[in-house]
């Protein structure tokens, strides 16, 4: 498995290439991109920050849980930090399994759990202000 957090643009093809495995008949990739609006307000850009060493640890926990729960052969999670423009890729998760059903389930688990446990934060920058996403109920 390959877990990475970095500032540079994510090359999705490279992430998928990493998990390619001749034993697998299904690769599911989730790509999280920067949306241009939230609740009707125009987003100018996003700023991501991470507590990197702990974020890597938490991503590894997710990966290990996935390897235990599903017959996953290969898995890659890349998360970007820093300033991102509209349409850029913030996260790419690729999972390869012998059969597609497991790959879909494992991929959904990966992104759902990432959003709950991994210490990464995003700030939405609007034309007239900025908001830390999900900070308030």
């Amino acid at each position, binding site marked *: 498995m390959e877990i990475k957090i970095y500032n540079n643009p994510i090359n999705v093809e490279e992430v998928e290439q990493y998990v390619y495995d001749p034993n697998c008949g299904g690769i599911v990739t989730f790509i*999280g991109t920067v949306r241009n609006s939230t609740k009707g307000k125009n987003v100018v850009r996003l700023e*991501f*920050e*991470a*507590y990197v*060493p*702990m*974020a890597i*640890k938490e991503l590894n926990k997710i990966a290990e849980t996935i390897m235990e729960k599903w017959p996953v052969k290969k898995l890659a999670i890349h*998360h970007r930090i820093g300033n991102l423009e509209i349409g850029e890729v*913030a*996260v790419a998760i690729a999972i390869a399994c012998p059969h597609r059903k497991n790959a879909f389930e494992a991929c959904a688990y990966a*992104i759902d759990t*990432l*959003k*709950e*446990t*991994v*210490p*990464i*934060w*995003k*700030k939405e920058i609007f034309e007239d202000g900025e908001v*830390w*996403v*999900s*900070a*308030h*109920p």
Partner: protein
Amino acid sequence: MKIKIIAYGIAKDILQTKEMSYELNDDSSIGNLKNVLLEKYPKFEALASLRFAVGEEYQDDEFVLEEGSEVVIIPPVSGG
């Protein structure tokens, strides 16, 4: 005893600094620290959640701190 507090995301904005050292009673727990912070910085109260990490792991309220502990404040995460 003296501990170090490290803040990310909105916690950094609330503390108005990324890092600070803090004086606590000996044998204080994360729960004690949380109470002190909530009292001094009421804006933490409004957050959807407030977690703490020591040694790059989430720790619960009972976790006992020691001289020199580095405590990271983890406000609601929003990766992905």
